């Protein structure tokens, strides 16, 4: 049995935040869950996917977040408790659904989990998705800790049903990827068979219906505002003339800080867990007789602006501060020290923090940048494409492991925006500059939203080349399935597989060729031909991710070694490929046999033929 299904009620477990959230959803009786994988939300999906294989839970990896939320909208309106989860930028993709779903509402709980990533540990931006609650007019819940996340997600389903609206459950990396002790509670058995009651005058969003439904939404939001004032996740803690308003993980840092500063009797805390709509009555009560208020929130000054507006309507004139050059930043994530200093400074307390050791005398330390893995087929494609296109060609790239190709020595990737954008931006660069343009996109990203860009490119007759880096999995986020994956290799029978080449051809792309990227010469020739083609051309470089192949027991049995008698130290291998299996010893290139995967790419480019295979015993 899955570990999150084991364990008696009241048993205590040390869990990752994302495991706790998955368990919470199961305790809530979730029947239907959809996602597109994205860090820091991925482990929730991974656990629910496993659980779905031994329970009645329906779980799917949808091909993008918009589709995931579309399925979820239907499921929740057919009476099933539904969870739809994604990373923060995924909600941009799903936002079109959300904005009107808020009008149509839901019949059964729909929780939309957005995993925000302050500091961008693994994201292209650090947008604050609390604004989506405001924009769509739906409630936002924000847990402060791992154990609270598990309980709060259950409440999110209840609240959604109370209001008949989807509820946004907003986490940050620090909750997703922290571990703590949680107590298991009873699992509610889910209702898994839904029924949709037709009601076109409330479900078909033509203007006449939407005008009616917008009013319903505003009424629901008003109801939510009342709930916010009495919700147990919104509370005031402590007493004092000074006040701190904080959300999410900042609450943990605030609690620890006031204890460290020894000012627990001087400061009170308001923690909105249901932070949209904000609890007006609670804020008024909190501001009354308070000298100064500090708002501690990562990201944008969402609560700060709201609290200031409440103060204005109440004619309360106490000082309210938060985002300020001397206090708290809109950039990155907080930590206990940042919060403690801001509190000490704003309220005028002495801060006796531990002093970090002096590091000014440290030598320059070699970096350990992330790198494409040893034997990664992307490296081979980048090498061949660089030979084919040279340095004058523009190379827009996309989101995935291959984004790392922009780093030296590979240096391929000139513009990366968001999922699927390589093809659209390639068209824009090609038209506006007249230069040769070659876009890189991965298989999962192609299915996610790149396919739309390609369709547009064909219709508008752009002159671009697209190289689809088809590594047969969604590698970056941990090898999740995508529509091109052979699910039978993973032991699943009930899936179909989409052939990228067939899709590309059916769109009317004039030049299409599939290559094996480990064959450098053929790959280079295919890309050269494609670039000569006038119009849209596509090269599909098809080779399984080395880590995925290893997991499936399909790793190669050969490794390569440098013959030092033949090697004349041209170092093309090291300088052009930068495979992490290389190391220099006594001024000679060597290959670490533990890391070499036998891809043979370095052997193909060595001008002295000094690299050759050795059988592993």
């Amino acid at each position, binding site marked *: 049995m899955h570990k999150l299904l084991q364990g008696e009620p009241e048993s205590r477990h040390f869990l990752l935040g994302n495991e706790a959230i998955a368990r919470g959803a199961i305790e809530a009786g979730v029947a239907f869950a959809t996602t597109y994988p994205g860090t820091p939300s991925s482990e929730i999906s991974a656990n629910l996917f496993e659980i779905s294989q031994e329970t009645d839970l329906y779980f799917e990896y949808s091909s993008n977040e918009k589709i995931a939320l579309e399925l979820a909208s239907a499921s929740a309106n057919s009476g099933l408790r539904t969870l739809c989860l994604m990373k923060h930028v995924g909600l941009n993709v799903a936002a079109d659904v959300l904005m009107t779903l808020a009008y149509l509402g839901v019949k059964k709980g729909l929780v939309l989990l957005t995993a925000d990533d302050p500091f961008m540990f*693994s994201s292209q931006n650090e947008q604050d998705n609390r604004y989506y609650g405001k924009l769509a007019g739906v409630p936002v819940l924000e847990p402060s800790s791992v154990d609270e996340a598990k309980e709060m997600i259950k409440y999110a389903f209840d609240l959604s049903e109370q209001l008949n609206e989807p509820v946004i459950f907003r986490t940050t990396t620090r909750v997703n990827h922290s571990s703590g002790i949680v107590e298991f509670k009873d699992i509610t058995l889910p209702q898994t068979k839904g029924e949709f009651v037709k009601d076109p005058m409330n479900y078909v969003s033509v203007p006449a219906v939407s005008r009616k439904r917008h009013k319903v939404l505003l009424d629901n939001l008003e109801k939510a505002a009342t709930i916010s004032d009495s919700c147990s996740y919104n509370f005031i803690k402590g007493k004092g003339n000074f006040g701190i308003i904080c959300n999410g993980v900042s609450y943990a840092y605030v609690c620890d800080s006031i204890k460290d500063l020894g000012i627990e009797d001087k400061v009170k805390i308001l923690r909105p867990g249901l932070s949209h709509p904000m609890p007006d009555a609670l804020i008024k009560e909190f501001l009354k007789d308070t000298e100064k208020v500090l708002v501690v929130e990562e990201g944008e000054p969402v609560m700060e602006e709201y609290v200031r507006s409440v103060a204005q309507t109440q004619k309360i004139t106490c000082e309210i501060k938060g985002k300020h050059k001397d206090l708290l930043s809109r950039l990155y994530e907080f930590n*206990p020290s940042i919060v403690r200093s801001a509190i000490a400074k704003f309220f005028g307390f002495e801060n006796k923090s531990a002093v*970090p050791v002096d590091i000014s005398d440290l030598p320059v330390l*070699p970096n350990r940048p992330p790198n494409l893995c040893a034997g990664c087929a992307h490296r081979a494609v980048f090498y061949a494409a660089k030979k084919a296109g040279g340095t004058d060609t523009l190379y827009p790239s996309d989101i995935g492991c291959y984004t790392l190709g922009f780093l030296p020595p590979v240096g391929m990737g000139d513009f990366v925006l968001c999922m699927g954008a390589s093809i659209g931006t390639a068209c824009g660069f090609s038209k506006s500059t007249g230069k040769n343009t070659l876009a890189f996109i991965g298989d999962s990203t192609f299915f996610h939203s790149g396919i739309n860009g390609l369709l547009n490119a064909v219709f508008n007759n752009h002159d671009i080349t697209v190289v689809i880096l088809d590594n047969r999995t969604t590698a970056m986020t941990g090898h999740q399935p995508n529509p091109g994956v052979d699910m039978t290799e993973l032991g699943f029978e009930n899936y179909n597989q989409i052939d990228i080449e067939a899709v590309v051809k059916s769109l009317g792309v004039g030049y299409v060729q599939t290559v094996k990227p480990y064959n450098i010469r053929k790959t280079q020739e295919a890309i050269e031909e494609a670039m000569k083609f006038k119009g849209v051309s596509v090269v599909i470089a098809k080779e399984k991710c080395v880590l995925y192949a290893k997991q499936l027991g399909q790793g190669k049995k050969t490794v390569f070694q440098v013959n030092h008698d033949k090697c004349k130290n041209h170092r093309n291998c090291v300088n052009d490929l930068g495979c992490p299996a290389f190391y220099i010893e006594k001024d000679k290139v060597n290959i670490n046999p533990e890391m070499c995967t036998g891809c043979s790419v370095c052997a193909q480019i060595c001008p002295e033929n000094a690299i050759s295979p050795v059988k592993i015993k």
Partner: protein
Amino acid sequence: MSNITKLIIVAVGGQGNLLASKILGEAALDAGIQVQMSEIHGMAQRGGVVESSILFGDAKSSIIADGEADILLGFEPLESLRAVAKCNKNTEIITNMRPLQPFTSAIGLAKYPESEEIEKLLKAKSKNFLGFDATKLAIEAGTSLSLNMVLLGALAQRNLIPIGKDLIEKTIKEKTKKQFAETNLKAFHAGFQKALELSK
């Protein structure tokens, strides 16, 4: 800051830092001690640095700011040195001294500091320093993969966290894969012994 112990563990992706952290978390749960753990492993699989912070005791936060670690447990000397900003003058450092060259220095684009220099700096930046070739002990115990257990053994011997040797041993037995349990325990004891010798 009384009853809270703050431990930072740094490693290179693949060195088993997260399993070591998880064992400490599970042991704390068993002992009825509050524990918060946080991990950063963005691109670990691709050769990056993995850092975890563990706070034992009555803290709500799960991360440790610069200067606030009580103990720095390093799986690789360069990464220990890189993380030294987490230390203050009362921090104790325990580290593996066997280098794992980053690609940048392996191909000669950067210089990996000499072991003696790393040791000298780490000694100067800490209240107590314990550095040894933990990889060697792991290999002797059966596999270099048991490096994490060697370092847990050394940590247990120093008596710096509110969890005793026996409990960590029990957790290793229960929570690591059966086929590795024996090697893991051997590695743990080797680390414990080494720390004992070096502390004398």
